[in-house]
């Protein structure tokens, strides 16, 4: 079953075509890796799917519904969660409160949602999510006091609390050391099958083997698609990466 379909999606920034007529199908339950050199358009594609950018052309269909016209917060409520390439945590809020934000949205359909934001039920759910990513013992700390490795996990926890059907992960391993990367990857693999995930990652060596399927982009286009090993050995992919030292 297709959970996300991207049709002919195009985004220009001035003269630069960041995403050029991309077609993409994401199957429910799969872990899809999205690879490509810097500037290939991966993050722009994420922003188009999550709604923080509007496309110049094309459609985004999620769960059989066209969502191209929806603002990001409504896409989040429909079940698209995301993390950011540059961490976007709520620094002056506690770790627990960061997660509680994601649990508040059913109440936020009203203009004056005046109920308490931390009723016991929500606290418990937030703690369960934090437990899952191993942050439960830091729950009452201010998020800005956490090291990057934990902030990346907090972002994952926060978007998990949304109970998304689809999770867009933008370089979750970026800036992490080997141990932190392994820990976070383990968390993500634990979600495999329950949540559909699209993973953008520069650390191809670590991320590629765990993907069910891989897509490679270059200059705003998809240049290869298929099983991870095939995509990795695809001559066009190798060529695209040569400029970056052949890291693929």
């Amino acid at each position, binding site marked *: 079953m297709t959970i996300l379909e991207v049709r002919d999606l195009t985004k220009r920034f001035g003269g630069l075509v960041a995403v050029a007529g991309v077609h993409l199908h994401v199957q429910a339950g799969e872990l899809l890796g999205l690879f490509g050199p810097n500037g290939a358009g991966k993050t722009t594609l994420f922003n188009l799917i*999550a709604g*923080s950018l509007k496309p110049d052309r094309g459609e985004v269909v999620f769960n059989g519904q066209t969502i191209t016209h929806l*603002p*990001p*917060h409504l896409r*989040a*409520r429909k079940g698209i*969660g*995301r993390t*950011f390439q540059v961490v*976007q*945590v*709520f*620094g*002056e*809020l*506690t770790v627990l*409160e960061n997660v*509680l*934000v*994601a649990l*508040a*949205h059913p*109440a*936020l359909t009203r*203009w*004056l*949602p*005046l*109920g*308490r*934001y*931390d009723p016991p039920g929500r606290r418990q759910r937030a703690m369960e999510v934090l437990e899952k990513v191993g942050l439960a013992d830091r729950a*009452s700390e*201010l998020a800005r006091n956490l090291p990057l490795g934990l902030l990346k996990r907090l*972002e994952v926890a*926060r*978007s998990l609390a*949304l109970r998304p059907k689809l999770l867009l992960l933008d370089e979750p391993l970026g800036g992490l050391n080997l141990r932190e990367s392994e820990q976070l990857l383990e968390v993500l693999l634990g979600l495999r099958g329950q949540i559909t995930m699209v993973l953008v990652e520069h650390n191809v060596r670590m991320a590629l083997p765990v993907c069910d399927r891989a897509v490679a982009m270059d200059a705003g286009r998809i240049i290869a698609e298929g099983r991870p090993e095939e995509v990795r050995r695809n001559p066009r992919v190798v060529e695209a990466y040569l400029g970056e030292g052949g890291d693929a």
Partner: protein
Amino acid sequence: MYAVTVLTQLCIYAILTLSLNLVTGLAGQVSLGHAAFFGLGAYTVGVLTTRGFPFLTAWLLAAVVAAGWGLLLGSISLRLREDFLAIASIAFNFVVVAALLYLPYFGGAYGISGIPKPMGSVAFSVLVLATTLGVAWCHERLRRSDLGLAWMSLRESEAAAEALGVDVRRFKVTAFVLGTGLAGVAGGLYAAYIGVIRPEDFGFPLSVTLLAMVAVGGMGTMWGPLAGAFLLGGFAQAFAFVHNYQLVLYGLLLAVVMRYRPQGLLGRRPT
């Protein structure tokens, strides 16, 4: 008697800083025109009560008028991501003061005088105090609500807030409307208490002063804006003789606080 007068004045400042804190401290939207909404509330009560309207009706309308203009200004200027509100609110403050000055209906530079108090002076001070406590209570209620959490989340990161289902634009406007409405409440009390209002009482310098009070006291908490209002407001009373240099003193104080305690004196909310 003097003490009661000063306390009443400080309470009005406190309502203003608490209401500004909803906008700037919790929702993170810098407003430099809060005095304009204070003035709109004051003039609503001034105009209506001198024409025979009962105080309570006029006071309620003061809040509605201020919040209505807040809704208008907010929905226009909060659409944009950048700190457009800061600039738009400055402009709005000057426009409001100019309109009050030049429209004869509002009494020009002399303003409106002979605004009646609905009750005795001391009883009215009690009303002001009770309102301040009520506003402080509302502030806390809001801060611990889903609405408050939505405000704080968008203050910290709009991108992340909307990715988690928060309608950023809607809640920015909500904050501004509530904040400006409460400024109108303060204005209504002020007009009836002081009896005489002039456009210059609601100028840009007061907006800056209010923002300084919130920043010095500590944004995002309840005690911060309260402390700021009482400290800088008390300061203004104590140093009334250097009236012309007050803003200089505020500026210095603000600079010192920002250097040594950027979160404000009571900044760092309890967790």
